[in-house]
């Protein structure tokens, strides 16, 4: 539903978005991940027709964002960063305004307003002015606004920033639910958020897409080796001599020694069943094993690797 080809946008001499290309389809929750200032917001602003790109093309639901921007905007529900809303309007008044400018037929306006109030849990605040609301509720009103015309595409810029943990979980569940039939594109710089919510992740850094795949794919991409934590009661020299002997161990680091228990972080070749082999080695030497734990390479490593590399270049 969204096709982006070599999109480029710069502000002065700073290139905010640099030849970004990706596709997204209905039923996907696409997480836009990247450090602050990576170009997430700019990309979203181009897709929602708020800004235009310097070069490249983008089509949303078959319409070009530059040529048929009004058609594109009809297909999208957009929540900008930090949910900017009119503080002097009442919640209901604001949602009514949105039903009008979103061309919802008069007969369905009540029903749609009701629906988004239920979805976003606004029941308690419908009598209030937006200016009186807490950050969390304001965010929800912003979300309600973006959902009111039941758009096939939802674009949310940092929808969970500034919310408390329980609200974050609510919003994530909401995004997951919506993402089952629609396309949700949302940005964040919080890592656990994407692995919890997204069916696909785009990691963007310095305006470039540095990774694109499912959370699992990205994790396995970074897995070149297994990392095992082990703590053994025994003589340190003997253990280290043994570690040097073992073929599958590519690198080991002494972590700590505590009461005669020596801890190591061991990097082993992929698929070498390092944990099992280490266990046998410990048994063979008559040491006792107090801890053995395989560390999974998670998104955080992927993210740090990719964004660090990019900066180093």
């Amino acid at each position: 539903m969204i096709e982006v080809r070599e999109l480029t946008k710069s502000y002065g001499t700073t290139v905010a978005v640099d030849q970004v290309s990706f596709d997204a389809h209905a039923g996907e929750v696409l997480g836009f991940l990247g450090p602050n200032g990576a170009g997430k917001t700019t990309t979203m602003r181009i897709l929602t027709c708020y800004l235009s790109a310097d070069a490249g093309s983008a089509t949303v639901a078959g319409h070009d964002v530059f040529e048929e921007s009004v058609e594109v905007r009809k297909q999208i529900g957009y929540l900008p960063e930090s949910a900017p809303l009119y503080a002097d309007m009442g919640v209901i008044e604001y949602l009514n305004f949105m039903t009008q400018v979103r061309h919802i037929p008069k007969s369905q306006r009540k029903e749609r307003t009701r629906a988004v109030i239920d979805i976003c849990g606004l029941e308690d605040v419908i009598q209030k002015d937006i200016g009186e609301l807490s950050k969390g509720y304001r965010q929800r009103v912003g979300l309600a606004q973006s959902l009111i015309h039941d758009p096939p595409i939802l674009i949310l810029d940092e929808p969970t920033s500034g919310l408390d943990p329980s609200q974050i979980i609510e919003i994530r569940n909401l995004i997951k639910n919506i993402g089952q039939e629609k396309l949700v594109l949302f940005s964040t710089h919080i890592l656990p958020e994407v692995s919890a919510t997204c069916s696909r992740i785009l990691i963007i850094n310095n305006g470039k897409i540095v990774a694109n795949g499912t959370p699992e794919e990205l994790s396995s991409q970074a897995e070149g080796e297994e990392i095992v934590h082990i703590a053994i009661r025994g003589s340190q020299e003997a253990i280290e001599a043994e570690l040097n002997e073992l073929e599958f161990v590519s690198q080991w680091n002494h972590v700590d020694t505590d009461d005669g228990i020596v801890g190591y972080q061991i990097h082993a070749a992929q698929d070498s069943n390092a944990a099992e082999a280490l266990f046998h080695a410990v048994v063979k030497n008559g040491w006792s094993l107090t801890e053995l734990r395989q560390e999974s390479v998670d998104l955080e490593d992927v993210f740090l690797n990719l964004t660090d590399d990019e900066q180093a270049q």
Partner: protein
Amino acid sequence: MTNIAAIFKKEFRSYFNSPIAYIFITFFLGISAWLFFRSFFLLNQAEMRDFFGLMPWIFLFFIPAVTMKLWAEEKKLGTVEILMTLPIRDYEVVIGKFLASFALLTVTVLLSLVLPLSVIYLGDPDGGTLITGYVGLLLMGAAYIAVGFFASTLTENQIVSFIFGITACFVLLIIGEDIVLFNAPNWLSPIFSYLGLGAHYSSILRGVLDSRDIIYYLSLIGFFLYLSTLSVESRKWR
């Protein structure tokens, strides 16, 4: 059309959700009542010449105050991002917002009609000049609004927008005044005299509703609204 109506309603209500509308109406009515009753009691005349004569200068301060927030506030709060990603064309937003300011002006100006109507039995005000005076007032006010409106699209700071607005309106007003025309080079003075806001207004005040004056005001309004649309669109320029 529904888009313009929706924007209009939102903006017009927002004036009354904030103190701006009430302050504007109160001050305007206060000043007009004072000007009116001064000539009524002191000079024993039921007429509004003073009132109309001073209006270009009073509007100079009031109207930029009414228009300053129209875009500056939206930009400051970021609400412009939601507004401009709605399926609405930029010019529809411009027209809707302009009409809302104009409606506030119209309501205020019409409320001041209470003054001449209250004394219509006592004196014998000239109905003709009264009507043309009010038409002129609205046209001039609308021109000021268009200028202040454009000023508001240029910045996200309301104070800056206010000062830009006053300055631009002042320049437009002053270039048609005698003091400038006398000192301007010969080839410039007819242009200045045509462009000046005041000259067209005073000819309307005399009771002559000339089509040239009306065309002048309408084209001035159109020109500044066009500039405003360009200015709003400039975020998308490549």
